């Protein structure tokens, strides 16, 4: 396949806006999806009892699932758009790093998860690591 010449890399504000679009839509999608899956219960056990069709039905009939997938779809197209303008080694770590923080906050606020010291430490270590990866 032919390689195509791209215009110069976008400025820092444009890059930040692209990454912010991924982070916000991704966080909304992940929190809604996590809430959906929590309300369903252990999928492995459902599959063991009702088979794969039963597990798929349990997921597809959960009302929170499709709004979550909708936001994840927005995040996906935002990612495609960003990858068309920026390096993978910037977009993937930067969006993953920030999503980790916004998800930890959203998980505590909306999903009532126990984000204890161990999880915050892990989130911070991973965050710094991802930042360094993007450096």
């Amino acid at each position, binding site marked *: 396949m032919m*390689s*195509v010449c791209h215009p110069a890399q976008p400025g820092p504000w444009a890059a930040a806006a692209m990454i912010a679009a991924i982070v916000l839509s991704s966080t909304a999608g992940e929190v809604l999806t*996590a809430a959906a899956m929590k309300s369903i219960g252990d999928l492995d056990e459902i599959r063991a009892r009702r088979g794969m069709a039963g597990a798929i039905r349990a997921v597809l009939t959960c009302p929170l699932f499709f709004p979550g997938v909708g936001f994840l779809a927005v995040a996906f197209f935002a*990612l495609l758009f960003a*990858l068309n*303008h920026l390096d993978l080694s910037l977009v*993937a770590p930067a969006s993953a790093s920030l999503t980790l923080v916004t998800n930890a906050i959203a998980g505590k606020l909306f999903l009532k*998860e126990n984000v204890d010291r161990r999880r915050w430490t892990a989130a911070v270590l991973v965050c710094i690591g991802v930042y360094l*990866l993007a450096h």
Partner: protein
Amino acid sequence: MAHSRLTPWQCLILAQVAICAPLGDTCLSRGMAHIPAITLAHPLSLITAVFTPWIALGIALLIGFFASYLTALSWADLTFVLPATAFGNVIVALFARFWLHEPISLERWAGIVLITVGVGFVARGPSLTEQPAPETEEEPVR
């Protein structure tokens, strides 16, 4: 009910989440680098991009990721699954280095070490917040 300690099968699901996502992202990046720049004036060209081989392969891998991710979220907290699968970022960096030939500086190697330590840290803790049973009309699955 979900477990606060992981079984080997659940570890395998988390590994699948960590591996499919970076592989998919790398395929998407390779695919998007070979098509003309997309502007906001022509957003529909994003749809046509979906049918190019590398992007189609990337999407297939991301579907595999999503199925594993949903399974993981059904028995573990979001704030456990995300850091535990962050090792995927290390895989992205290694793919970027050895497949896409992007350079990896000393800082990036330091980042790889920190992520690995962070993943090890969270993986040693409980995977699920114990909460009282939700009061829904549906019969809870046991």
